[in-house]
């Protein structure tokens, strides 16, 4: 015997995001981590390694040891956000691999973040139901820029 009243469904307990919202949040997380990883790698390569090349002992290697370790940790988080975004926005595998590589090549992260942002925003502008032939995504981004 059930004591629950019949015909009064409970309101949903958890707040669920639809596809567009979930993808947009994944894009924002990816953008934040791309900024962090890009700055970290640029600091490491353009400041840390020259200092280490001057003198390979403690105070000169501080930047490499601290920023290098921090970049390692942030890069793991960055990989997770990349995977999340690529899975939600249905990016190509080549695009995901390029995003992964942009955490390893200095200054590539900034360029890649702009590319991915433009691509995913164009896809989001088309909505969840009618997406993404490549031609439609390109056309949407071009025509939007033309209006401004």
């Amino acid at each position, binding site marked *: 015997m059930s004591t629950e009243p019949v015909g009064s469904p409970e309101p949903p307990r958890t707040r*669920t*995001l*639809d*596809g*567009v919202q*979930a*993808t947009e949040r*994944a894009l924002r997380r990816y953008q934040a981590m791309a900024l962090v990883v890009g700055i970290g790698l640029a600091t490491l390569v353009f400041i840390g390694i020259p200092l280490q090349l001057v003198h390979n002992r403690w105070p000169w290697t501080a930047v*490499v*040891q601290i920023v*290098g*370790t921090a970049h*390692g940790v942030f890069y*793991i988080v960055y*990989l*997770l956000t990349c*995977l999340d975004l*690529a*899975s*939600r*926005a*249905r990016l*190509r*595998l080549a695009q*995901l691999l390029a995003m992964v590589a942009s955490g390893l090549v200095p200054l590539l992260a900034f360029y890649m973040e702009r590319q991915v942002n433009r691509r995913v925003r164009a*896809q*989001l502008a088309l909505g*969840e*139901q*009618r*997406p*993404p*032939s*490549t*031609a*439609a995504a390109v056309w*949407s981004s071009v*025509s*939007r820029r033309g*209006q401004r």
Partner: protein
Amino acid sequence: MSRRISPVRQRWLSRRAFLLHFLLVTIAPGCLFAGWWQVHRALSGNLVSYFYSIEWPIFAVLAGVAWWQLLHDEERPGLAAPARAEGEGQPRGRRSWWHGSEQAPVTPPPLRWDRSQESPELAAYNDYLRSLAAGGRKKTWRNPRGLPDAPVEAR
């Protein structure tokens, strides 16, 4: 023979899935090998290598997570799978490599008119067309101003 491929085959044996299997088999052992190399460097006195010998196995685990996630990504909330090219409804890369042509074609959803994409001129012209369709005068064969050479008093 059924026209549809079983979902299991489509998930695990499509071209994209084979590419994912290949990447997993390549990347994960590579990361483990690099981790082992960093363990050796750490034991020979390199302090930062203690951290790297933890980080490389994490990358190997991440490769496994990514492999699983990308094989199952259509179950997550996100955007719909992209079409292969303009006018072609099949999802990209989800075809099985020996049943490539047997998949039932997916009909693309109908196009919707998006007013936010109109230029100002096009929007004005569409408004004009709408006003004509709503309240325009009926077309008639009779010239409302009369014949061209008719006298003015006759109107």
